[in-house]
């Protein structure tokens, strides 16, 4: 049975025709040597872990525009509701706006039900919105929180598929972070161990992935309490320039103070030299 596709008028739903046109235009522009402005992306390592009393979410803080770091300390853990937070990877604008829209809708929903919102509700809202846009909203999310059903963690992909798991990683550094998780994750960890694990997973992403860097933010969510630790760990401290040590700006002064290099032994040999001849040669400075 052959599949025959008949060109027919698009019935209902979104039309993504312009997206195809834009992709062609972009290819044409690149052929001419110009480049269209790059979207700011959160290259990113984000992850989450379910532990004994709740969930720990973690994220790095680098935002890139192509090969340039646009923001060295951006916040990737977004507020959804008092008990639910969401880390976002992918296009920065998409993650920011998507989480804000769902946060707003969830607050209205919560007022309507009269209850604290559930993580599964946020998950449904996010996946249904992302599916509607067929992957053109580039938001890859790690959603975590604690509700009346217990602690839960979801990973949400740009096309709208979700997975409910005890530990998840997303973003360009997700493989590095997942390696750490697969090695050291155990069910029902204590809070300190879980925070250490998430911190180490994000650190793996920061140091092994070019798209991730700077600091490590954590968010610990338990029943009734949220610890938003920003920054939890400044993994990449900016170095101090040598030309301002004593407050005096001196460019090009690469002298280090006495004691920077430890001296083990010191031996002084005097060279007793006699002056044999002394002559002056004038230099022609005309």
């Amino acid at each position, binding site marked *: *049975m052959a*599949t025959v*596709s008949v060109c027919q008028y698009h019935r209902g739903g979104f039309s993504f025709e312009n*997206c*195809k046109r834009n*992709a062609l235009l972009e290819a044409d522009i690149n052929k001419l040597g110009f480049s269209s402005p*790059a*979207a700011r*992306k959160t*290259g990113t390592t984000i992850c989450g872990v379910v532990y004994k009393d709740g969930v720990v979410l973690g994220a790095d803080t680098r935002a*890139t525009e*192509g*090969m340039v770091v646009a923001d060295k300390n951006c916040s990737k853990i977004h507020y959804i509701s008092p008990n639910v937070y969401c880390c976002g990877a*992918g*296009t920065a604008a998409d993650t920011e706006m998507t989480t804000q829209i769902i946060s707003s809708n969830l607050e209205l929903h919560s007022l309507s039900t009269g209850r604290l919102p559930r993580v599964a509700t946020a998950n*449904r809202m996010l*996946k*249904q919105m*992302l*599916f509607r846009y*067929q*992957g*053109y909203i*580039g938001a*890859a999310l790690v959603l975590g929180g604690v509700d009346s059903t217990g602690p839960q963690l979801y*990973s949400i*992909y740009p*096309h*709208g*598929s*979700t*997975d409910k*798991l005890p530990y998840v990683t997303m*973003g*360009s550094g997700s*493989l590095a972070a997942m390696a750490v998780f697969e090695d050291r994750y155990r069910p029902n960890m204590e809070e300190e161990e879980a925070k250490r694990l998430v911190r180490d997973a994000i650190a793996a992403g920061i140091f092994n992935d*070019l*798209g991730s860097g700077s600091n490590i933010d954590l968010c610990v969510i338990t029943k009734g309490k949220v610890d938003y630790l920003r920054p939890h760990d400044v993994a990449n401290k900016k170095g101090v320039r040598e030309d301002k040590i004593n407050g005096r700006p001196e460019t090009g002064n690469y002298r280090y103070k006495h004691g920077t290099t430890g001296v083990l032994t010191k031996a002084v040999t005097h060279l007793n030299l006699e002056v044999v001849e002394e002559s002056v040669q004038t230099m022609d400075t005309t």
Partner: protein
Amino acid sequence: IVSTFNNYNDLYPDWTQREVSTGTTIMAVEFEGGVVIGADSRTTTGAYIANRVTDKLTPIHERIFCCRSGSAADTQAIADAVTYQLGFHSIELDEAPLVQTAASLFREMCYRYREELMAGIIVAGWDPRRGGQVYTVPVGGMMTRQPVSVGGSGSSYIYGYVDSNYRAGMSKEECLKFTAEALTLAMERDGSSGGVVRLAVISEQGVERQVILGNQLPKFSTV
């Protein structure tokens, strides 16, 4: 698969731009009194395994399940929509829905939106009128009832095994063994299938689920 992001290939490797797919091997077998369904547990984005413990056996109603293969996002969205429609229909009817009804709802959606979707689904369950039934709704949106059905990328490797080893009138235990062995063989050969084997038995008594971990899978001489 359309790449919708800029092509910074060094910085953002392949699997950040590919859609999530349940590579998959799924299977369902009818027996006297119910059905046995089974699936592997691997979800991939390109060459990366996004979820190695996926549950592809999704409940649609109390005694009706579907096995999902193809695009993860598409099949999850379709399953959610059909679950809602079937639940509503069942309340209107005030009785347990037919497996054929569930399969029809899947077929309606998969056929209507066939150009936009990539979903291969096996619907299986038990209802009081016709007992255990398996309906397959592959990619184009056709729907047909079969005593045994396999699907997903790994199914290609086990058509021979299934055709030669299936007998009508097998017992529940025989069906479980048959399904587990077929899935194991497919998982060994198909790169997009793997992880654990998830099985479920649906009958008048309800649903019994089980998981066979990697080291407990049946052993064959060459694998």
